[in-house]
Every structure is written in C-alpha cells, then in structure tokens.
C-alpha cells in the first residue's frame, strides 16, 4: 500500500529562551526555514527570544 502523503504544513513549537518552559505553537510550511521571533513571555514579563524546537524523527 502506498504511504500516506505528508501534509504541506506542520505545527511547530517555539520555546522561550528565558528557560521558563513557556512556548508558543505556530503552523509553517514544511519546506520553509525554522521560525524564530521576539515575543512576550508572561513568566518573566518581558519580551524574549523564541526559537523553534528541533523536530524529532
């Protein structure tokens, strides 16, 4: 049987670099480069860097 086709987009998790455990989820095209942005982290109450978590196999 043929394998199911992979979806074009994926849901990714962006982790707060303040090491608070806070994260945001986004949807991006599978082929695009990883996401990163500056956003508010409510735990430290500041804008911090959010980087996309590496995806496992």
């Amino acid at each position, binding site marked *: 049987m043929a394998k199911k086709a992979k979806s074009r987009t994926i849901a990714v998790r962006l982790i707060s670099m*303040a090491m608070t455990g806070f994260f945001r989820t986004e949807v991006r095209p599978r082929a695009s*480069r990883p996401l990163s942005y500056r956003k508010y982290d409510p735990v430290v109450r500041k804008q911090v*860097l959010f980087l996309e978590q590496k995806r496992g196999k």
Partner: protein
Amino acid sequence: MAAPAEAQKYIQLAKKLPKQLLSFFKQFPPNTPRPTTAASNAPESPHANNPFLAASPLTNPTYNPFLPWRNPVTGKWRPPMVSLRRQAELCKLARGHGVEELLPFSKKQSFVRDAVKEEGLKVRGTGVGQRVKGKAWERTLKGRLEKRRQAMLGMEKMVEQWEQRGHGRGWKKWPK
C-alpha cells in the same frame, strides 16, 4: 475471718463494676504483667512438653487477650481473643468506672489513642534530624529560578546576535 480494710474497699468497688468487666477480670485478673506487643504475647508456654495445653493461650498466665497470639506448637497466628470492637467496649466501660489501667494493654485504651492522635497531628519531617521532603516543584525551584536568571542575563546579547544573523536565517543552535 474478716478481710483487711483495704481489701474490703476493693471488694466494694468490684461490686459496683458492670458484669462484663467483672467476668473479664475473673478470667484475666488485674495486676498481672501482660505483654504489650503481639510478638511478645506469651511466646513460651509453661506447658511446652504438653502440646494439648501449649496449643491454648489460656493455659499461659501472661496471655494478653487483646493481642494476637502465635501458637508455639504450630507457629500459626490467632487473632485476639477479644475483638477490637469488644476491646473498645470494655475500655470505655472501664474508663467510666475509673479502672482502665487494670485492663491489659490494648490499642483502644485512652493513653494509646491519645498518643496515636498526637503522632498523627505531627507534620512529617519536622522532628529532630529530619527534613521536610516537599513536592518535586519545591525541591527544584531554586535551581530552576537560577537557570532562568542566567538565561535572562544573557538575553540581550542573544537577541543582538539573532538580529545580526538575519533574524534567525543563519541560526545554527536550535533548542531540542
């Protein structure tokens, strides 16, 4: 022959006791040292050479009917002769007549119950040489806060670097 005055006093007292207590004291006379733990409840029978007598706890004068008993012949345990419910009834009756200390050791006696209650009210880990264990989040809180503090100290530099590398275009170290 008339009994001494002291004895008369006790006889008068005994006459006032309810039937249940009297019959209990008749079978298990007070002022006999009786064990306070099940393990020491008459382990050695005075009739060791007679298995028929040794197999009954009642042949042992130090038997405590409020505790389990181990048959020295077969090694099997027997529950207390007086059930916990009846122990409680007897202790309550004896307390009412002020003769509770004449009963053998029972966990239904007021001093034992008070001690257990006291023990239960204690906060675990507050004794001498003990530590309160705490929840996992409480035990790891200090370390996590320190990690967060260090991360925030380096945040400005990290953001600067990130902006220099084209807002993530050249970023290599993605978190796991």
